[in-house]
């Protein structure tokens, strides 16, 4: 959390000017947007280059590459914000406890299931079609945050707090156990209620896809469209990230969290209730994960008890990519990883003539990135080089 600390250590006490607050809040978000644009452009250039290299053998390749490019970028945006919001939960907990909360992917999943359950309940009552779209989104976000946040705090109390001070592997193994328990308890609940194992996530009608603009490639115009759900997901994620940055960088509470992350013992000497702050960190991280789960479930259309595992793993990768413990890093890492994955998933089969299915190898790409990062730059994109981090 060194990046934030630098900005805010100057004012000792009292009020800060509005400009300063805005800078601390929007600075990280701006940095993230920079990476959004940067990775989109960089990866587009890479695929264009790859297409040009092969163009001798396959003349239509460039047009096909550009045709799907806008959709790939939108897909990358969604994935990127998904990973960013989940990665924040990992990175905040890691910052405070130096511990990988393995069960965080399941906290995310629970948010999705809660959202689906709300939709199902509304549909059963006959309200679903009548609820305004925005209200529905707010409802699932709030409920998802509530349930997931509470769950995360409970998990910390039950399974992690008794193990504080134990060797590092002990809480990690406990977290793996919690992750398995949450998966199966959710499965039990889902299969014994009308939700079922693969629950459909019904939503009110959000209208037809929004046509952004048309591209003229070759002989026919290609419309660039974004689905309303993707738009909702991305804008809600941006709002949440801004609020989180405000909370962490511009409030007393945030200062307490950062102090606890820096040095738990000293923070407690300064009158910070460390246990409370740790609970709070789990609450915030869990709530973010839950909201992301609800939104993502809505975006995808179905939820199941195992849907949190792989995104959780990738979000962890994103957190490491950005520099674990660093909040801005988690957002940036999520964005970069999301774009990378979207590009691999869409272009791998195109460039290899359908020999490799991109969707399957996108997972491998994510894990390879994790391994490469850990070997060559263990402190991550934004982390500071320390030997103790890894």
């Amino acid at each position, binding site marked *: 959390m060194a990046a934030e600390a630098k900005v805010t250590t100057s004012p000792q006490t009292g009020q800060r000017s509005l400009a300063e607050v805005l800078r601390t809040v929007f600075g990280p978000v701006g940095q993230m947007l920079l990476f959004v644009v940067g990775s989109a452009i960089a990866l587009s250039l890479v695929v264009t280059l790859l297409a040009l290299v092969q163009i001798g053998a396959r003349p239509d390749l460039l047009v096909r590459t550009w045709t799907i490019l806008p959709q790939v970028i939108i897909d990358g945006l969604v994935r990127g914000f998904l990973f960013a919001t989940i990665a924040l939960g990992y990175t905040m907990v890691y910052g405070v406890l130096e*511990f*990988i909360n393995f069960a965080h992917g399941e906290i995310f999943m629970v948010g999705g299931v809660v959202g689906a359950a709300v939709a199902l309940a509304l549909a059963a009552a006959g309200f679903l079609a009548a609820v305004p779209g925005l209200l529905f989104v707010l409802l699932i976000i709030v409920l998802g945050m509530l349930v997931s946040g509470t769950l995360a705090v409970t998990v910390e109390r*039950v*399974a992690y707090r*008794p*193990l504080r001070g*134990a*060797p*590092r*592997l*002990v*809480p*990690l*193994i*406990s977290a*793996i*156990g*919690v*992750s*398995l*328990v*949450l*998966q*199966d*308890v959710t*499965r*039990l609940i889902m*299969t*014994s209620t009308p939700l079922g194992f693969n629950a459909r996530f019904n939503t009110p009608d959000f209208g037809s896809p929004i046509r952004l603009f048309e591209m003229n490639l070759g002989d026919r115009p290609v419309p660039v469209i974004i689905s309303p759900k993707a738009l909702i997901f991305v804008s809600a994620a941006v709002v949440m990230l801004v609020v989180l940055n405000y909370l962490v960088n511009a409030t007393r509470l945030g200062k307490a969290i950062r102090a606890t992350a820096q040095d738990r013992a000293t923070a407690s000497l300064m009158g910070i209730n460390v246990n409370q702050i740790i609970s709070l960190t789990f609450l915030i991280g869990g709530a973010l994960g839950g909201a992301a789960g609800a939104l993502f479930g809505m975006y995808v259309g179905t939820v199941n008890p195992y849907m949190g*595992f792989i995104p959780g*793993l990738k979000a*962890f*990768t994103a957190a*490491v990519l950005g520099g674990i413990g660093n909040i801005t890093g988690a957002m940036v890492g999520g964005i970069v990883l999301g774009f990378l994955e979207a590009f691999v998933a869409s272009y791998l089969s195109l460039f*290899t003539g359908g*020999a*490799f*299915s991109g969707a*399957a*190898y996108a*997972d*491998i790409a994510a*894990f*390879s990135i*994790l*391994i490469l990062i*850990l*070997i060559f730059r*263990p402190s991550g994109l934004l982390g500071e080089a320390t030997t103790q981090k*890894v």
Partner: protein
Amino acid sequence: MARVASLQNIRMTPTAQSARLWEQLRTYLGRGSGAYAFFGLYAAICTWQLFTNPRTSLRTDIFFVLFLLLVFMVYRSATPLWFRGGLTAVLLVVVMPIFGTLNPFYIDVATQAGIFVALALGLNVVVGFAGLLDLGYVAFFAVGAYLWAILSTPQITQINPAWSPVPPIMFYPFVVLGLVIGAVFGILLGLPVLRLRGDYLAIVTLGFGEVIRVLANNLDRPINITNGSQGIREIERPPLILTNFIRETLGWNLSDSQLYQQFFYFVVLLIVIFTVVVVSRLKNSRIGRAWEAIREDETAAVAQGIPRVRMKLMAFAVGASFAGAMGVVFASKQLFINPPTFDLLRSINILAMVILGGMGSIPGSILGAVIVTLLDLQILPRMATVLRDAQRAGVPIPAAFDPTQYQRLLFGILLVLMMIFRPQGILPDERRSEELHAGDEPPSEEEAPPAARAAAESS
């Protein structure tokens, strides 16, 4: 002697009364003539019960568990080596196979348990000895299994039509090859993660395990190597040995499938013995001590001149090699493998064995593997039948709840509870518990068991 007794009296608290009784009971039954009588009688009753009542039932289940417990108790007892070795050998080499001819289910459970004992011992090298948490251990198992599955079946002609499957007799060299390939993959995984600390290592190994599974699932295109999600079927088994001897000389009329069960039981038993010997020799060697030093404090270990890189790689290689060899046996025994066989849950399963038994403890890993396998194959299905009966009788249990489908729940709870209440496991590693109780000196070998010595002298 009197001084020791008084010391014990001082240390004794009222709550320790029952513990003392238990201690005495253990001393009487664990050594000398008491032990011979106890184990002899126990073995006789168990064998008699299993032989006269071999049908699969709750009763047989209980006696089967008691039988395995007996084997373990004999193995752990303080009786002379000839008695321990002899009785264990009789139980495992004579009683178990004969019981297996009467009921094929239980010998299959025993074989599976054996496979997982070897895997747990291998993982124990990595996690317990060297302290490197490996969540992708099943990947090495998968590599061994796919090695034999691809090369022994017509699957290989998919890669290159000119190649032909290896003859089934090559099974034996392939077990050794599995060992080598496992070690190679262990080093491949070990190299990039050498610098990582515990929790990062866990995630990277988990990712590695997933990568291997995804590869197995998707390498049916562009070249069909693994046959993708369909898996590989009709994997070759080695030709049977001693068929004529058993059928004609001994006059036992066993079918081929029964003979294969016996065959794999013995193959697995041999590998398990080999693994136990290798792992216990390693543990007390310079290498084992170097691993422990790295586990306790890496910086201090390096300062003492321990070659960190070599030792860590060796831990990965040794651990992975057992899994590779067992993979070959497993593929051959199961006849069919597919990618979901090697998912993360399997890795967690093996980890749960090691943790349940006690990280770093060899008997602990064996016990953990047997308990978890029994839970998986025997106790959960049995619970499922009991629950279904209860459901029919009108007890309100969710219809969807089938205990065999909820292994994750079980292992999850197990992991959390073990970490909170007994992180050292059921049978903790001695050196670790010595570290934990460094204050009170353990009673030395000569002075401690006066009762047992008296018993030994009178016999």
